[in-house]
């Protein structure tokens, strides 16, 4: 989901157009969500490899707001395209998360 959001959404919509059911499990690390870092550090982008010196204390609140906006945006856009969007925490074992999702879905049916 961290790629170009429009392209990702376009690709997912194409599956949906072919009558497939599309479920997006959006895996988010707790560090990504809470940005709990304290000390200044060099943050390295895993995608592009670029680096940046960051003082977390100065950036935390703005980062969390932007990240939350991003998740909301993803959720809204995917739902509009009738694509189920579920955010999973990397700290939660994936089978338990999957089971929880399936239970929830069964109740809805």
């Amino acid at each position, binding site marked *: 989901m*961290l790629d170009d959001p429009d392209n990702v959404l376009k690709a997912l919509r194409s599956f949906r157009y072919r009558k497939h059911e599309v479920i997006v499990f959006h895996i988010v690390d707790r560090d990504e969500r809470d940005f709990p870092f304290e000390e*200044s550090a060099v*943050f*390295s*982008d*895993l995608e592009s490899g670029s680096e940046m010196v960051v003082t977390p204390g100065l*950036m935390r609140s*703005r980062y969390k707001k932007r990240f939350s906006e*991003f998740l909301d945006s993803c959720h809204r856009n995917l739902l509009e395209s009738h694509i189920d969007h579920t955010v999973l925490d990397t700290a939660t074992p994936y089978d338990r998360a999957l089971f929880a999702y399936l239970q929830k879905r069964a109740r809805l049916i």
Partner: protein
Amino acid sequence: MTFLHPWFLLGSVLAAVPVLIHLWFRKRLKKVPFSTLRFLKSTEARRFGWLKLREWLILLTRCLFVLFLFVGLARPHLKSTLFGIGRLASVYLIADNSYSMAYGDNLGRMKELGRQVIARYSTNSEFCIIPLCEERVGTEYYWMRSESALHALDRIGLAYTGGSIREAVDRLPEMEPRHTVEYVYVGDGQVDNFRDFPVPLSTEGLFFWVQVATGGNIGISRVRLKDPVAVPQQSYTMQVMLNSYSPRAWSGKIGVTSGDCYLENDCELQSGAEAIVDFEMPVECAAGKFEIFDDSLLADNVYYFMKQLPQSMKILLVGDSPYLLRALQSESGAEVPFEIKIADRIGNVDLRRYDVMILAGLSEISDGERLRLSAFLSRPGTGLVVTLDDSVVGTAGGILEGVCRIEENVVPKGYVVVNWVDTDHRVFKIFENQRAMRDVLFYRYVRISAPDGVLARFSTGDPCIILRGNTAVIACRMVPSSTNFVYKSSFVPVLLRLLVNFVAGSQLTEFRVGENVAPLERVRTPAGDVLASDDFFKIPGFYSHNGESLCVNVEPGEGDLRILGQERAAILNVQKVDPEKDLAGSDLTTLFLIMALLSVFFELGFILLR
């Protein structure tokens, strides 16, 4: 730019420390793999540039703080004026308060220039204000800030004495100066002020001279009796010696005030000349003051005088000498200044009643008489005249011990004459330019010798009259069988002047401002204050001591206002300066320390500004 403590500049390399710390911490920063920097960048997109700039500004202010701090500690000094900041130095300000500064308002002008000098130095400078002439013996001098220095300068008063930079420098405080030493002399720069100029000042230190302009001067250098051993009847003559220290001819009036009496004379004086002006004074006027009018240096325009005129003397004539007695008594019945008593021996005569004793022929003297004679001569204003005859040889060495040595009787074939008299001595001054006593014959005399004090010599070379201390010895008895002196016209004047010489001795006592009061005690100033025995005369005028007046005058030499020439100043390495133009300089210490402080404030500001 120069630095007082340049080794502090080594500390400025510590300015690199914040950079190194920055790099060190940057290198040690933990690397955190993160999914994407998109939100970080987008979050801080606008602030990111500012934060980066802020980071560099903080680093810069830290570097500048260290740099400014150490440059400030190195005491930077600029040789030109910057923002009106003054020079940095430890300044010995030698303020000329010698009495030549009484010329016009030169003392006030000196203080004004001194204030200008102090204003040219920074607030970090220190000052030691030293008057050229010490006002109180034992005054301690110390370093002070400019404000105290201004007060000290204002308190300096006229000293009425001469002084020298040498003496002033000898009074410098023991405390070490904190900065580069500079000497600033503010004064008229009389040549005499630079006598014995200390070599270290001319070779090592910076010596500035801020000149107080002066001009010509006429001064009374001395007042004296024209004939100190004459006995005045109605009047006497006072001589006023004037010196011109002026480049121009001067003509003016000199007046003398003595009680209700006032006399005035005109005087003309060429440039650099000396002149003597005579005043015919009534005998009642023995004390007063002479004044020059229309001259600018007031201090030496007044001369206080008090002359003890010989008016009456009590004489004890011991021995049989009718010729001496006749010489001392007026044959014409005119009033003579002597009261004479005759005695065969000293015996038990009360010597305290007499001023002068004449021993006509020296016979045996007992030990008791010798002691009483010694006590008599120890009193001031007393004297002894001894005429020697044949019998003295081998007997009378005792009382003349220390005056002369008696050797033998001399009986020349025929006679001898006196062919030399000391006309420089005030007793024989009246015989100047004339062959005095040339017709006086001596048929016999006693050969005496003395290392000095010979007033007259026989043609044989032997002394005829010796005067040492308050004892006069005549080598011949004053009788016709020994000499025809007693019949000659010169006999009475010589004898009288010899006697008057003893009592006129106190006329020589003269005091100058700056002299110590000791050994006199309980001397009162003209204002009536009592001076301590270790004090000194501070101002000219009439002082009193045991009911008697003492006249105190200024040192005449200080009235010479000739100033140090350019060539001599160059030799002494004395730089004549104008404080407004030539004492430029900027002590940048405070400026740099303030900038260091500002760096701290800016750094704190940048840290707090997010």
